[in-house]
């Protein structure tokens, strides 16, 4: 019990400390990029920091601080950069070459530069050409780097694989009774089967979708939870990730759909002929809106959670006194608990809605239609 409390305290301490430290670092970054040293107020600094946190990054930085000489020291690890350059072929190097976006990376006589979280090809001086919208016009190589998010996805996948294969093994060695962590995860697996899959998909077809539903539930949940740790990752708050997840659901729905599903889209039974013609485009649109909503819902919830939580923690520095600090800390603490719930809730909703869509795809036609 005391152990748990202690670990929560340390977690928050780390979170607050890392924000403070990286916040310092980023004022330096901003100066470097724009070339002119601007004295920024705390609010703008925080906004920039939060913006930065929400984005993917090329290295896995845990925190950074400014040392006595005024240099930013980053604690973390570099990640591999993999680029497909149409002129120079495949380029692979570690992200440490960028020095956290401050430097130009040179590899085999080719130069690359990170600008607004994207890698551009550049020259030795690192010059970028901009169009009238302030977008760089330099060549952008195809970027398959293992970014922070990709690394986190890999870590969570490995964790899940280890966890659930162990659980499966414990059933074999223990006569069908789970042990250890399995006692915690088994009810969740059963809940997904009995409360999500079977009621929404039906006793007949649910088995085909169980693997996907279970994987998506635990993947989203674990990734959400990691987003709350001081690792500072924001995987499910990235539109690319939620798009990929929603697309998987969309394609499974589309490719496992039966005749009944398609007839409900293109030729709605039980309504007048004219209405069927009117309904068809709406239903076709609905096919795409459903996964789109899935994507936006998860993305927006996670981003909102991170923004609110970080802004409230940031308030500590806006107030700058012990009263405000203490109050804000309490608020941030309460909100973190709420976010723990949201992490689970969003995973549940994603799984639930996926199951609902699968259910509509395999629903048998009823005589009462």
């Amino acid at each position, binding site marked *: 019990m005391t152990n748990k409390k202690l670990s929560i305290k340390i977690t928050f301490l780390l979170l607050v400390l890392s924000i403070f430290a990286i916040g310092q670092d980023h004022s330096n970054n901003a100066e470097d990029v724009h070339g002119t040293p601007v004295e920024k107020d705390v609010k703008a600094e925080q906004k920039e920091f939060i913006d930065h946190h929400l984005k993917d990054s090329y290295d896995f930085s845990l925190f950074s601080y400014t040392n006595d000489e005024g240099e930013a020291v980053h604690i973390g690890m570099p990640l591999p950069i993999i680029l497909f350059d149409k002129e120079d072929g495949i380029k692979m190097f570690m992200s440490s070459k960028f020095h956290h976006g401050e430097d130009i990376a040179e590899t085999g006589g080719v130069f690359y530069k990170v600008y607004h979280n994207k890698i551009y090809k550049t020259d030795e001086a690192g010059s970028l050409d901009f169009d009238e919208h302030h977008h760089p016009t330099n060549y952008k190589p195809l970027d*398959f780097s293992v970014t922070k*998010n990709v690394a986190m996805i890999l870590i969570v996948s490995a964790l899940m694989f280890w966890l659930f294969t162990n659980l499966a093994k414990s059933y074999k060695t223990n006569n069908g009774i789970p042990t250890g962590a399995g006692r915690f995860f088994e009810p969740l697996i059963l809940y997904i089967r009995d409360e999500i899959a079977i009621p929404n998909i039906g006793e007949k077809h649910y088995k085909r979708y169980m*693997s996907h539903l279970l994987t998506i539930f635990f993947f989203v949940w674990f990734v959400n939870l990691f987003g709350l740790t001081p690792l500072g990752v924001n995987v499910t708050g990235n539109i690319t990730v939620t798009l990929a997840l929603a697309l998987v659901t969309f394609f499974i729905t589309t490719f496992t759909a039966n005749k009944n599903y398609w007839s409900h889209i293109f030729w709605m039974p039980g309504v007048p002929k004219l209405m069927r013609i009117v309904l068809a485009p709406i239903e076709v649109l609905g096919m795409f809106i459903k996964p789109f909503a899935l994507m936006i819902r998860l993305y927006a919830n996670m981003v909102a959670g991170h923004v609110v939580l970080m802004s409230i923690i940031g308030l500590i520095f806006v107030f700058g006194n012990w009263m405000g600090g203490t109050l804000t800390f309490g608020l941030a603490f309460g909100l973190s608990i709420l976010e723990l719930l949201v992490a689970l809730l969003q995973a549940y909703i994603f799984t639930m809605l996926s199951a609902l869509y699968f259910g509509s795809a395999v629903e048998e036609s009823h005589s009462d239609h």
Partner: protein
Amino acid sequence: MEKLFADFSLGLFVFQTLIFIGLVLLLKKYAWKPILDAVNEREEGIKNSLESAEEAKKEMASIVADNEKILKEARIERDNLLKDARSMKDKMISDAKSEASVEAEKLITLAKTSIENETLKAMTELKNQIADLSIDIAEKVLRNELSDKKAQMSLVEKLVEEAEGNFSTKQ
């Protein structure tokens, strides 16, 4: 919206999709299928055990009912046997009594007849003896009295008279 498009990264998308699909397939083979199978098996096992327990309970109940039935039958049988025995005993006693009384009657009748016979016999004997004696006495008296002719004649007359008298009263 523009920011959302700017945030989109093809590399991350490809990684996420491939890793996720790979994870689904791997977990399906090595985790979900074994877990769900094990859980199903266990649930089936529990269901079967419960059913068999219920069956055993029913069987027990039927056995108890059977036992009670048998006991009841046995009791009725015993009662019947006792009743039979009692009635048989009564019948035997009454039979014996009636037989004994018949026998006794018979004996008494037999005794009576034999007594009567004996009496008759004794009486006859006695009569015969008396007759003999009287004849003897009469012989002696007659010899004595009929020593003269006159006396003999008067006696004959007298006897005839008497016999006639006897004869008329008898008729």
